[in-house]
């Protein structure tokens, strides 16, 4: 009988999460899903490019609701319409609910759950990989759109708002991702729940007077937006009328709270749940 070599100490929660992050990041970044995401985030860039080309040809100035507007205003509108109302929450649903569900569906979860790391660390690592992957795709798109739309002469004036946009989008990705990571860990059909939350509950809650809107992520993310909300539909008009912007610090703390609580609950859910693979 040979002497067994001494094994290193099992990774701590944090180290385990970082290792899983390393394993998952490559898989996430080069997956077909992310390629599709790049195409989607490329659309605002394309739109911004079209705007820039049209503007540079000296054709009649573009108008939003019949009023001539500059690139900065259009950038604000695109932040609202493309990124805040669609890309960020949908990415949260798209990736967040699939963090472990993909592994279960692909039947690779066994390899991760039979390692000397807590299951919660697996969830955390995958969440971190999601955050980095989506930020790496979404934020550069925002940067490109900004520099395509905003004339150089206005950059200095609008840069603070732009930086705020980047920050709030990152925070939005983090909050939605964490929330739907919890949904994915705790519920059997997380996708439907996620879509109902984003396109059902949040849309309704934001137009209901009172404090109901505080039970949405959108309320706090939108509270940080430095641009005016566009009025493109009845729901949007109602939302802008009934909107009450909490202070920025409250929004940041609330979103940080959503991230922390969701991840904590998600870790607990993953560690107590049994994952039965389809044979």
């Amino acid at each position: 009988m040979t002497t067994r070599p001494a094994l290193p100490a099992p990774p701590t929660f944090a180290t385990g999460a970082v290792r899983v992050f390393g394993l998952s990041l490559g898989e996430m970044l080069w997956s077909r899903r992310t390629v599709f995401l790049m195409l989607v985030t490329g659309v605002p860039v394309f739109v911004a490019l079209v705007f820039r080309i049209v503007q540079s040809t000296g054709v009649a100035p573009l108008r939003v609701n019949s009023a001539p507007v500059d690139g900065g205003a259009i950038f604000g509108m695109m932040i609202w319409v493309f990124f805040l109302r669609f890309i960020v929450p949908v990415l949260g649903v798209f990736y967040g609910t699939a963090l472990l569900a993909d592994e279960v569906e692909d039947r690779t979860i066994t390899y991760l759950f039979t390692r000397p790391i807590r299951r919660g660390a697996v969830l955390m690592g995958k969440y971190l990989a999601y955050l980095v992957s989506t930020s790496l795709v979404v934020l550069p798109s925002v940067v490109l759109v900004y520099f395509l739309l905003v004339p150089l002469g206005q950059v200095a004036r609008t840069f603070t708002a732009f930086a705020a946009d980047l920050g709030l989008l990152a925070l939005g990705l983090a909050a939605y991702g964490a929330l739907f990571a919890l949904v994915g860990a705790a519920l059997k059909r997380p996708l439907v729940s996620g879509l109902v939350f984003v396109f059902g509950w949040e849309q309704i809650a934001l137009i209901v007077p009172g404090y109901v809107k505080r039970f949405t992520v959108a309320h706090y993310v939108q509270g940080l937006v430095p641009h005016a909300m566009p009025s493109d539909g009845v729901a949007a008009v109602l939302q802008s009328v009934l909107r009450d912007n909490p202070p920025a610090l409250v929004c940041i703390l609330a979103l940080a709270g959503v991230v922390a609580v969701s991840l904590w609950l998600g870790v607990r859910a993953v560690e107590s749940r049994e994952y039965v693979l389809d044979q």
Partner: protein
Amino acid sequence: MPIHDQGYRHYAGRRRPHGTAWWVIARQQIRTVLSQKRYLALLLLAWIPFVARVVQIYLAANFQQAAFLATSAQLFRGFLDQQGLFVFLLIVGASGAIADDRRANALQVYLSKPLTRVEYIAGKLFAPMAFVLGVTLLPALLLLVVHVAFAGSLTFVTQNLYLLPAILLYSITLALIGTFTMVALSSLSKSRRFTALTFTGLFFFTTAMYQVLLRITGSRLWAMISPRDLLSVIGDAAFRIPGERALPLWAALLAATAIIGASGLVLERRIRGVEVVK
């Protein structure tokens, strides 16, 4: 001679004619859907708006005070619009149509049978299309029948003969665009969840894109990129709803045909018995 003593021999029973194999696939899909309680519940719920409209028609036909509820083209247009959510959910439910087969490596098995690719695709399209038409075309036609029954005459129908082709056009276009797109997306993935999310994303994203481009350029021709707005144009035009439309009907139908055609091309390329691994 007992069966176990009989050696190999050719099947001597009745065979279905060639070209009917698609029905085997379609039948299986329908059975699978109907065996799931949540889909049964959805299909039943989808008929609640029909019941509400029946009540409306009854009241309008029998009570003078309810004359403002009188049947009009707008009733049918509105009804079909209302069914949009159920149609969306039914189509999303078909996200695994081909994705599940790809995941299970079943395409090779299917295509090694006397089954052409066209039959396979037709079988996969049939079930979701049947369900969509079952909650749009069928109840809308029944509403016409109900109106005739309560009104006691065919006057409304003869005065609005365009309603029948309008219902057919809108329902079938809706079913074709939705199911072709979904089944084509399903052929691109092995994950039904990914397919469902992609479809949902595309649906809402194209709508958002149209809104932005409309605001920026002022041109409503951008409605061609949004299936939701395309269908809105087709519906309004078919039911002769007054008001300015984003596109002429022919352009909307052309764009719809292009979406269906593109989906068909994707299916033609993706439904193969083998997959090349690079």
